[in-house]
């Protein structure tokens, strides 16, 4: 087995770029790490939700009398138990949500809007009794027709989910309610003029299904309500400060009255950036006077957490015979689920951004349907739109008989390219990624019979945001990095390496902890590929603050001006003399020089650098059954700087695997009544160990000038290219166009048969 996962350049850093053992590793390989479902408290009871068996219905009546009479039932909570909330936009993780929608998603307000929509919660002395109580509740429904696709939702006489929702973004204010929440247009240049210059134009409509992040850990929390002191929530989340903010807002609490502790998190991929259980559990705790634990069953995770949007995206691209793309146009329709707020606009902003093309125009429709409200899913909105665009780009290259990588290079976005959403790109690494792809051993390998190859680019912005870090130095010169960014994929290790590099102190000298909302100032959630970038910058700031203090202490000991102190490899040096004091020596005597040393780095990080990715996928298709096997796969991506190369590669490989699943077999299957048919890992088919080859990686490093070590976020871009790389490979193998995902055996066989 060849290890292809070496970083591409040797660095001049001492700690950064090394493959250190993660500091939380021991706990995680021994089972000692505590996740969302792992905390129990004395006197704790169990909460469960009653969920709608219908996709769209009015609730006529609810009878809880039999459930309340069941021995062991401690509390029943319905929508009416929530304090009243009104429409207000609040930040949740990677995006924003309307508080009123959030409340009505937590619990139906007289009307259920999707299969699995929560109706009420029951808390009892055991999980089993809570489940028995749910079975005793009688709900009378008036079933309404379900709207399950953007086409149906946008039809003239479509049943309307929200009677007070009027389309935003239209030239004229509409006077009838609609399932279209908003229309956004993005534009640069003149696409009509662009298409007029084109020698070849390709246009198609593509479909991508509803998909789920598929984290292995179900949503879970344990809470304790305290009317007079401070309430507590322990939960699995990407952003515990966001959980605190939304929960406090929904329950009319002040932030200081609520402490949220982030447990270890068993995967999120954007799906754990909002709340589904925590406010309900707190209300149950309030009613019962007992701590309450809630754990979603797997089917509840699929039915009622936030999947990724299904889309119907039409794309049209024109190019000259010499390979110059002249115009790119799209009309994107994203399902938002039951409440407005799909990432349609993000789809529009990303679809064509790998290209330096003068004329672009995209219309983005945000459409509600009777499915669960979508949540962020790794580069939210980008994979669907870029899939459609990249499929057309590959088809155009084939029509023009130009190598697909050369075609992309010829039109590649680079520093100075004006984006469709306004600003010009700063230094980016797309060209370097494409060149690495072209030069990869994979791309040189010839294909065999029944095989096909696809190439795709991917673009994601990445974000910065608010991060706060405290670096507490111990009396022996070791230190604790206190951060507030839940570690979802090994980021504690990167924090240590950045602190070590800045201070010149060995990485093992640091312990990194993810503090609760009490023990560190606000942090935005782990999302938007921001943690290593933004929280990493905060770590560097905190470390610099420590160095500043160390130098001051040394200066005071030596009775010299601090300006003559240098800090080299963890040691203060008096440039004017021969004195040296190590960090350990300074820390040991800190009480005598002014008290203990603690660095602070509270920042709002700016200058997040986009990360471009290019993937190559080879598949083999069984033409009798339509089954697709991925036989070789390479993921190339610009990390800016890989702080911990193993975890950077892990992001590329994990993103690739998720994207391959999206391309090949993953989809929500609803019946015509809107009942989800596959709410489990048996029939929602995520890739298995036996489904995949090794995923080769190339780490490209084009430093982000805004980060002290050049970091770009790497968490998200990697899920974008697999869709088109895989689907185009299938298309190449069967010599017929693929438009609809997933490329599941029945779908692929249908394309083969239709084209034979």
């Amino acid at each position, binding site marked *: 087995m060849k290890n292809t996962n070496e970083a591409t350049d040797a660095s001049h850093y001492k700690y950064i770029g090394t493959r250190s053992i993660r500091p939380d590793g021991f706990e995680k390989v021994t089972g000692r790490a505590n996740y969302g479902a792992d905390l129990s408290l004395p006197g704790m009871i169990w909460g469960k939700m009653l969920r709608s068996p219908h996709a769209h219905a009015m609730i006529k009546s609810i009878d809880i009398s039999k459930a309340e009479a069941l021995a062991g039932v401690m509390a029943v909570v319905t929508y009416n138990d929530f304090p009243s909330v009104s429409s207000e936009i609040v930040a949740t993780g990677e995006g924003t949500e309307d508080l009123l929608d959030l409340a009505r998603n937590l619990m139906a307000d007289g009307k259920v809007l999707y299969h699995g929509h929560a109706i009420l919660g029951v808390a009892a002395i055991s999980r*089993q009794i809570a*489940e*028995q109580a*749910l*079975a005793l509740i009688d709900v009378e429904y008036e079933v309404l027709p379900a709207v399950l696709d953007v086409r149906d939702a946008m039809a003239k006489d479509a049943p309307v989910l929200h009677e007070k929702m009027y389309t935003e973004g239209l030239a004229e204010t509409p006077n009838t309610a609609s399932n279209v929440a908003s229309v956004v247009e993005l534009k640069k240049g003149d696409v009509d003029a662009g298409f007029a210059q084109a020698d070849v134009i390709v246009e198609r409509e593509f479909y991508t299904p509803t998909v789920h992040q598929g984290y292995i850990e179900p949503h879970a929390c344990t809470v304790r309500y305290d009317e007079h002191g401070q309430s507590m929530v322990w939960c699995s989340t990407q952003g515990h400060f966001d959980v605190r903010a939304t929960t406090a807002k929904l329950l009319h609490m002040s932030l200081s009255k609520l402490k949220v502790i982030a447990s270890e998190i068993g995967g999120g991929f954007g799906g754990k950036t909002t709340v589904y259980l925590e406010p309900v559990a707190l209300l149950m705790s309030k009613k019962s006077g007992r701590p309450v634990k809630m754990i979603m069953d797997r089917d509840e995770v699929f039915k009622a957490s936030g999947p990724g949007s299904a889309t119907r995206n039409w794309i049209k691209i024109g190019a000259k015979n010499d390979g110059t793309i002249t115009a790119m146009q799209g009309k994107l329709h994203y399902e938002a689920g039951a409440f407005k707020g799909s990432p349609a606009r993000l789809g529009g902003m990303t679809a064509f951004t790998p290209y330096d093309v003068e004329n672009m125009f995209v219309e983005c429709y945000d459409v509600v349907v009777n499915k669960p409200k979508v949540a962020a899913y790794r580069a939210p909105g980008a994979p669907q739109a870029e899939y459609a665009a990249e499929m057309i780009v590959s088809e155009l290259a084939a029509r023009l008989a130009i190598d697909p990588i050369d075609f992309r290079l010829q039109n590649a976005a680079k520093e100075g390219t004006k984006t469709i959403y306004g600003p010009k790109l700063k230094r980016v690494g797309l060209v370097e990624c494409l060149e690495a792809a072209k030069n990869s051993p994979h791309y040189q390998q010839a294909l065999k019979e029944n095989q096909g190859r696809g190439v795709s680019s991917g673009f994601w912005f990445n974000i910065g945001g608010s991060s706060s870090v405290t670096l507490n130095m111990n009396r022996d010169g070791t230190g604790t990095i206190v951060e507030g960014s839940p570690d979802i994929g090994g980021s504690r290790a990167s924090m240590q390496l950045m602190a070590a590099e800045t201070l010149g102190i060995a990485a093992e000298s640091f312990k990194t902890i993810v503090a609760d909302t009490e023990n560190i100032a606000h942090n935005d959630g782990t999302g938007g590929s921001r943690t290593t970038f933004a929280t990493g910058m905060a770590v560097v700031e905190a470390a610099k603050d420590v160095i500043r203090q160390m130098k001051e202490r040394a200066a005071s000991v030596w009775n010299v001006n601090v300006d003559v102190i240098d800090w080299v490899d963890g040691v203060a040096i008096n440039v004017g003399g021969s004195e040296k004091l190590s960090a350990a020596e300074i820390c040991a005597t800190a009480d005598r020089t002014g008290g203990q040393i603690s660095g602070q780095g509270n920042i709002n990080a700016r200058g997040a650098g986009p990360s471009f990715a290019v993937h190559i996928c080879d598949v083999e298709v069984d033409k*009798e*059954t*339509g*089954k697709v096997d991925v036989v070789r796969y390479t993921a190339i991506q610009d990390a800016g700087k890989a702080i911990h190369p193993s975890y950077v590669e892990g992001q590329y490989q994990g993103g690739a695997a998720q994207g391959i699943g999206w391309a*090949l*077999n993953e989809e929500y*299957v609803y019946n015509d009544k809107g009942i989800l*048919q*596959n709410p489990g*890992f*048996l*029939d929602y*088919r995520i*890739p*298995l160990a*036996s*489904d995949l080859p090794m995923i080769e990686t190339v780490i490209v490093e084009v430093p982000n000038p805004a980060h002290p070590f050049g970091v770009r976020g790497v968490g998200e871009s990697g899920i974008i290219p697999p869709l088109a790389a895989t689907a185009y490979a299938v298309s190449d193998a069967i010599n017929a166009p693929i438009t609809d995902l997933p490329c*599941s*055996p*029945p779908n692929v*066989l*249908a394309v083969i048969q239709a084209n034979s």
Partner: protein
Amino acid sequence: MPIVDYKAPVSVDEAITMLADCNTDVKVLAGGTDLIIQARPASSNPLTVIDVKYIDSMMTASVDSDGLTLGPAMSCAEFTARDDIKAIYPGLVEAAYLIGSTQVQGRASVGGNLSNASPAADTIPPLIANGARCVVAGPDGERDVAVEDFVVGVGNNCMLAGELLKKIHLPLPQARTSDAYLRFIPRTEMDIAVAGAGVSITLNSDGLCTAARVAIGAVAVTALLVPAAAEALIGTKLEDSALQAAASAASAASKPISDRRGTADYRRHVVGVLVKRAASIAAQRAQEK
């Protein structure tokens, strides 16, 4: 909880007495990989489970001149590790190996797979292809039922209240006979069959097919024995045309539905492909005997 009582008899007779004496719904527990999930909903009836894994004869298998006598509750992990069984019935062992993950293999059993009577059960087509019979024991003695008659509907077998699947018996195949089982799933593992085909082929010394049994799964409410597919193979050397005819016969005999695992048209098509491929493998194996 729906499961309200658990009993662990050590003999078949004791199990039959316990089945008769039970005053709630009662189910036999072998590996539990289907039963424990099915018994979970809080709304289901109180259930007593009779764990038959302490009954030696339910947990062992022997091969002799009569063929294979299989204890229905023996785990697939133990069953598939038996080289003596694999040498004679490779298709059935393949099918048992396909049920679920390694973890599920550690618990699931051929008898459980059969009794659960899913249309997509992997072991049923190769059991039928091999002419397997079930010995069903009850308060009134024993009866002997062909596997194709044992399963009577989706999730339903022919056993009456108080009866227990005591043994599964497969006759010893004739000379130059072998079997194969193929199923189609979207991934490489962990899925339920979209379609399945178990084929047993007997060749004479000239390589001519003298006997065949073809059974298909997941394309009707029960697995189907397809005599027309077998007839298409008998008397041929399994040339492409014969394989294609068998495939067409299997597709024609199928009565599939559309669901989350595949459309009816797709299943009808793929079951033919599987019959064709499984027949080739079985013939190849028979040739090598």
